[in-house]
C-alpha cells in the first residue's frame, strides 16, 4: 500500500514537473515564436544568458522572473479572499485533469506492472468532465471578486460559454464511449490499437469523425482561447482577469497553457489512439499484409511514449495555429453555435452511433 502511494506521488511529481509544467512553460515561448513565424516575424529572442540566446528560450525564464517580481496588487474594491484564490482554482482544475490521462502503455519493471497514468479511475471519463468544468469557478470568482464591470461581463460570458459547451463536450464523447465500450481511458486507448482491414487504425477520429469535429471546437471553447476567447475578448471587454497583474495574472496564463496541454492530451487519447502507434503491436510492427518487424519491448515502449508526445505536441501546435488565425465569435453566435448547431449534431451522433453499435 505504501508503495502504491509512493508510486502515485512519484508519478504526480514526474508528470507535473516533467511534463505539464515544462510543456506549459514551453508553450508560452511557442506561442510567441510560432505566431511570429506564421506572421513573418522573428519573435521574442532577446533574453540571453552570457550572450547565449537559444532562439529566445530564456524568455520563459525572464517572463517568469518578471511576472513573479511584479507588485502583487489587489484592487481596494475587490473581495480579497476570492480574488486571491481564483487563479489557483483555475490552475488546480487544469492540473488535476491530467491525472487520468494514460501517456504510455503499462510498463513492466521488475515484474511489477506500472501504469503510465497517475490514477486509473474506472470513471476516468467522467472525472475529466467533472474537473474540466471546475475551471468555470476560476472565471466566475475572478470576475466577481474583481468588482469591475468589464471583469463581471467577462465572467458572465465565461459561465454561459463554458457551461453550454460542456454539454456538447460530454455528448460528443459519448460516441467514443459507445464505440470503445468503456469509460476508462486506458481501455479507450487500448481499443484504438485495433485496425480495420489490418491497415486503418481504429482511432477515434475514424470511428467518430463527427464527434471529433464537435469535440475540438467545444474543447477549445473550454480553454477560452481564440476564436472562443469571449470571456477575455481583449478588444471588447478586456476580460474577467482585467484587474489581475503580476504573479496571479501569470497563474491565469499558466492555467490557460496547461489547459492547452490537457486538451491536446485528451484529443490524442480519445481520437488519435493515445500512445498507440499504427501497426505497432507489443512485439513490433504488424502490417496489414502480414509482414512483421520485431522490436525489443523497451523500444516499443519508447516508440509509444514518443508517439504520445508527438501527437500531444502536434495538437498544441494546431491550437496555437487556430488561435492566431481566426477571428473571435460574438457571444450570441457562440451560444447559437453551441446549442442550436452543435448540440443537435452531437445528439444525432450519439443516436446514430448507438444505432450502428446495436445493429
Amino acid at each position, binding site marked *: 500500500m505504501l508503495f502504491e502511494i509512493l508510486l502515485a506521488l512519484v508519478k504526480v511529481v514526474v508528470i507535473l514537473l516533467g511534463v505539464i509544467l515544462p510543456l506549459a512553460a514551453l508553450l508560452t515561448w511557442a506561442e510567441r515564436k510560432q505566431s511570429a513565424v506564421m506572421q513573418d516575424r522573428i519573435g521574442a529572442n532577446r533574453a540571453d544568458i552570457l550572450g547565449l540566446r537559444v532562439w529566445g528560450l530564456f524568455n520563459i525564464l525572464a517572463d517568469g522572473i518578471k511576472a513573479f517580481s511584479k507588485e502583487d496588487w489587489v484592487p481596494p474594491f475587490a473581495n480579497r479572499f476570492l480574488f486571491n484564490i481564483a487563479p489557483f482554482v483555475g490552475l488546480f482544475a487544469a492540473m488535476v485533469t491530467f491525472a487520468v490521462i494514460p501517456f504510455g502503455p503499462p510498463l513492466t519493471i521488475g515484474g511489477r506492472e506500472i501504469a503510465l497514468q497517475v490514477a486509473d479511475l474506472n470513471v476516468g471519463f467522467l472525472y475529466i468532465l467533472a474537473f474540466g468544468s471546475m475551471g468555470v469557478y476560476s472565471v466566475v470568482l475572478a470576475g466577481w471578486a474583481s468588482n469591475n464591470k468589464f471583469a463581471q461581463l467577462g465572467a458572465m460570458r465565461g459561465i454561459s460559454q463554458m457551461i453550454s459547451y460542456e454539454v456538447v463536450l460530454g455528448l460528443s464523447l459519448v460516441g467514443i464511449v459507445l464505440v470503445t465500450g468503456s469509460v476508462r481511458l486506458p481501455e479507450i486507448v487500448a481499443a484504438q490499437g485495433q485496425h480495420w482491414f489490418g491497415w486503418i487504425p481504429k482511432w477515434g477520429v475514424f470511428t467518430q469523425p463527427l464527434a471529433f469535429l464537435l469535440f475540438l471546437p467545444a474543447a477549445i471553447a473550454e480553454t477560452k482561447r481564440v476564436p472562443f476567447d469571449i470571456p477575455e475578448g481583449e478588444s471588447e471587454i478586456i476580460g474577467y482577469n482585467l484587474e489581475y497583474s503580476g504573479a496571479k495574472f501569470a497563474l491565469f496564463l499558466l492555467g490557460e497553457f496547461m489547459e492547452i496541454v490537457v486538451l491536446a492530451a485528451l484529443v490524442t487519447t480519445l481520437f488519435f489512439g493515445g500512445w498507440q502507434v499504427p501497426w505497432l503491436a507489443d512485439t513490433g510492427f504488424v502490417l496489414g499484409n502480414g509482414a512483421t518487424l520485431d522490436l525489443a519491448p523497451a523500444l516499443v515502449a519508447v516508440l509509444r511514449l514518443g508517439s504520445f508526445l508527438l501527437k500531444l505536441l502536434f495538437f498544441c501546435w494546431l491550437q496555437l495555429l487556430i488561435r492566431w*488565425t481566426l477571428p473571435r465569435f460574438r457571444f450570441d453566435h457562440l451560444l447559437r453555435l453551441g446549442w442550436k448547431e452543435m448540440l443537435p449534431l452531437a445528439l444525432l451522433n450519439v443516436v446514430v452511433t448507438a444505432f450502428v453499435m446495436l445493429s
Partner: protein
Amino acid sequence: MARFVNVDRQATLKTALYYPAVWTGLWITARHFFVNMGRHTLHAIGLKGGKPGSTTLQYPEVMRPLPRVLRSLHRIKVHEDGRPKCTACMLCETACPDFCISITPMEHDGSPEEKAPAEFRIDLDRCCFCGFCVEACPKDAIYMDTQIMEISSDRRENFILRLPELLDPRPLLCTGPEFRGKSVEKVLPHLSWRRLDHVTPVRVDLSYRTEQLARLHAGNPGTRPAGLE
C-alpha cells in the same frame, strides 16, 4: 473612365459550414509557418542566399538600408578649412514652422562671409522633421542626412543640439539612459551609429567662437554707443 461596380457578395453553403473557410485560413497561416520555418532552417544551416524567413529585422543589430533623402538628425557642413558653412542668415529659423531653431550670429573676421553663428541651437523636442530648414538654407550648410533616427534621452536639455554637435553629431549618440556612463567606444560597435561612416569625419574649427561665447556667458551684450543719459 471610372465606373461604379457592384461587388456585393452572397453567403454560400461553404461559408455556412464554418469548416471549409476555417481550414482555408489555417492552410494559409500554416503555409506561412512552414515556408518561413524552411527559410529559417536554410539560413541556420548556412544557406544565406535565399529569402529571409521574416520581414522584420533584428533591430538594432541589423538595420534596414535607409534612403539618402530620409530626413534624420540635422548636421551642419563645414568648409575645407574647418569653418562651418553656416553664415547665420536665419532663413532656416524663419522657415521653421516649429520655431525650434535659434541662431546667435556674430562677426567672423576670418571668413569672406563676415558672419558666422556664435551659437546655433536646434531644439529637437520641438522639431517635426519637415526638412524646411534644409530647403531654406542658401549656403548648402544644414542637412538632415545623418541617418541618425534613434534620439533618446531622459533629460530635455539633451535634446538641444548646439553647434559642436551639429558639426559632428557622433558624441550625441550616447545620451540614452542605457548608455549613460559607458564610453563612446563601448557603445558604438553595438549600435547603428556605424551609419555615420558616410558622414565624412571633419576637422571642425570653432576657435572663432570663443570670444563671442565668453561674452554671451558673461551676459555682457557688448559695446554699444553711449545712451542718452
